[in-house]
């Protein structure tokens, strides 16, 4: 064993240690950012260790340079350009590419052999075949599933009707069987068609299982697919004989699974329900058929009336939702709350665990608008405060403030923890229309006597409120003093 080999082993071990510390640190606010750097350093070390160990030829270096330049550059550009509102899609895209990479490695080894023979690994042929099958299968599902998830979040891909019927289970089972046939015939196959059957069936299966899932559950799906890409990486580790890859892949796979579970709990859904239940509300009948026809006692009001209520309020709570993010209104909201604070009003923001489109998404968006961290209050802390709150303004949130989740056992949302805004003295709901939320069901909050709807785009309404408040002279006296 040469010194170089020893060195590369040591580097590998340090890399694994740093990865573990990185994942652990990422789950605490204080350490998250440095932990992210630590994990990045770990990947760098892993690559360095491998290069020391394998000592690539000049030709290999050339190809490494090409891959690095293209992938690295695109990664940097994407990471800088993408808006904060599009984070979920971006993670899905990255994840899909990671899955595709594992898939390609396995396909390359299956088609052209190579890596195993050279590395002096003593694994049997069957083990290699099994690893290839798993890597292809999981990699393909990760890839196609992530791309579908991205498309659905971007609104490019609708949810086709047949995916909500039982037909989809038949289709998916057929695809799974096809993939299994491809996998079983792979070792004996000389024509190479088994491999392609496996690739095609697994990819289609990834589409088939992701397509029926509604937009509201997509974050959970992305988290699960993220866990899969760890499994795919571990399988690729078996294929090329890298223990580092196996341990890192297994770690990410398992941690991803836990995160998925944590997210499911936050949304009060079971994982099985998310995966096989179809789009939430798709099967449950919506009251009155059309989503708008269900409402009978709606009060709407103008920004002017809303501003007057705000002027006299002592305590105001904003409930930001995805509509706020879409309208890019977080800065206008920050301005409004500054004005109210100058007027002596106590302002806070109620953050539902799944506000926005991903858990924690809203915190990121509000932090971008310089909202003080202390004003963001989580659901459990703010719910007891609502009864002594004068005005609640709901901005583009819907399902997370639906009181039916507490009261109506027949509601598909029943049991989901919600923000109890109906306890407040007055509620204004800023919404573009009476359309249903992600869950596709009507919201009893809108019909309560203390609720008034302010129709319009969140940013336009907030700007309207700002100018109304300025006219009323709110905040001016104190600001000048």
């Amino acid at each position, binding site marked *: 064993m040469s010194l170089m080999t020893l060195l590369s082993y040591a580097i590998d071990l340090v890399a694994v240690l740093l990865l573990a510390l990185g*994942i652990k640190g*990422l789950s605490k*606010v204080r350490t*998250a950012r440095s932990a*992210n*750097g630590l994990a*990045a350093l770990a*990947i760098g070390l892993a690559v360095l260790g*491998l*290069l020391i160990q*394998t000592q690539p030829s000049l*030709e*290999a270096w050339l*190809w490494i340079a*090409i*891959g*690095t330049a293209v*992938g690295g550059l695109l*990664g940097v550009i994407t*990471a*800088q350009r993408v808006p*904060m509102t599009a984070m979920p899609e*971006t993670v899905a895209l*990255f*994840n899909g*590419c*990671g899955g595709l*990479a*594992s*898939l*390609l*490695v396995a396909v390359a080894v299956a088609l*052209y052999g*190579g890596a195993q023979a050279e*590395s002096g690994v003593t*694994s049997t042929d069957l083990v290699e075949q099994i690893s290839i099958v798993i890597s292809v299968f999981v990699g393909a599902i990760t890839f196609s599933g992530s791309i579908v998830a991205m498309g659905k979040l971007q609104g490019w891909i609708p949810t086709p009707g047949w995916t909500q019927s039982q037909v989809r289970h038949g289709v998916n089972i057929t695809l799974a069987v096809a993939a299994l046939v491809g996998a079983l015939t792979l070792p004996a196959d000389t024509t190479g068609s088994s491999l392609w059957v496996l690739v095609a069936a697994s990819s289609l299966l990834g589409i088939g299982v992701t397509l029926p899932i509604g937009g509201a559950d997509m974050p959970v799906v992305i988290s699960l697919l*993220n866990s899969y890409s*760890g499994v795919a*990486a*571990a399988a690729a*580790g*078996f294929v*090329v004989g890298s223990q*580092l*890859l196996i341990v*890192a*892949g297994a*770690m*990410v796979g398992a941690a*991803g699974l*836990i995160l998925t579970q*944590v997210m499911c709990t936050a949304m009060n859904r079971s994982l099985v329900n998310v995966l096989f239940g179809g789009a939430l509300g798709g099967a449950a009948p919506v009251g009155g058929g059309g989503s708008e026809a269900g409402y009978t006692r709606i009060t709407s009001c103008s920004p002017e009336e809303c501003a007057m209520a705000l002027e006299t309020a002592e305590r105001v709570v904003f409930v930001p939702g995805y509509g706020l993010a879409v309208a890019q209104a977080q800065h206008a909201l920050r301005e409004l709350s500054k004005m109210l604070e100058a007027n002596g009003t106590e302002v806070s923001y109620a*953050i539902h665990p799944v506000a926005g489109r*991903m858990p*924690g998404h809203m915190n990121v968006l509000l*932090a971008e608008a310089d*909202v*003080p*961290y*202390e004003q963001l209050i989580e659901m459990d802390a703010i719910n007891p405060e609502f009864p002594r709150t004068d005005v609640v303004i709901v901005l583009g949130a819907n399902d997370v403030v639906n009181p039916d989740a507490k009261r109506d056992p027949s509601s598909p949302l029943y049991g989901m923890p919600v923000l109890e805004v109906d306890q407040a003295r007055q509620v204004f709901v800023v919404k573009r229309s009476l359309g249903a939320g992600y869950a596709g069901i009507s919201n009893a909050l809108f019909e309560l006597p203390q609720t008034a709807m302010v129709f319009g785009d969140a940013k336009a309404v907030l700007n309207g409120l700002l100018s109304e408040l300025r006219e009323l002279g709110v905040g001016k006296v104190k600001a000048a003093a």
Partner: protein
Amino acid sequence: MSFLSEALWVLLLGSLLGLELIGKVPPTLHTPLMSGANAISGITVVASLTLIAQANGNRPLLVLGALSLGLALFNVVGGFLVTDRMLAMFRTGANRAKGGAQ
């Protein structure tokens, strides 16, 4: 079979470690953690590099290796940078709050 049995032990212990690493996660961090874990799963760059390094001049292997290297690096680089961008916002948000609270 020594590689296989070692590898299976590594798989088992790695999975157990992963299950223990994160327990309670504040909802604030769900998105960054997911994004960070996603970047780490791009560790499959190691597989791509192995493929290239051991291709021995086999052109299709080199091409496929470079392709998968590019994809995996896209995942790694983009993933870490995006996570950092998100987490950086938390920090400035908290710092500004401290600065503004006096």
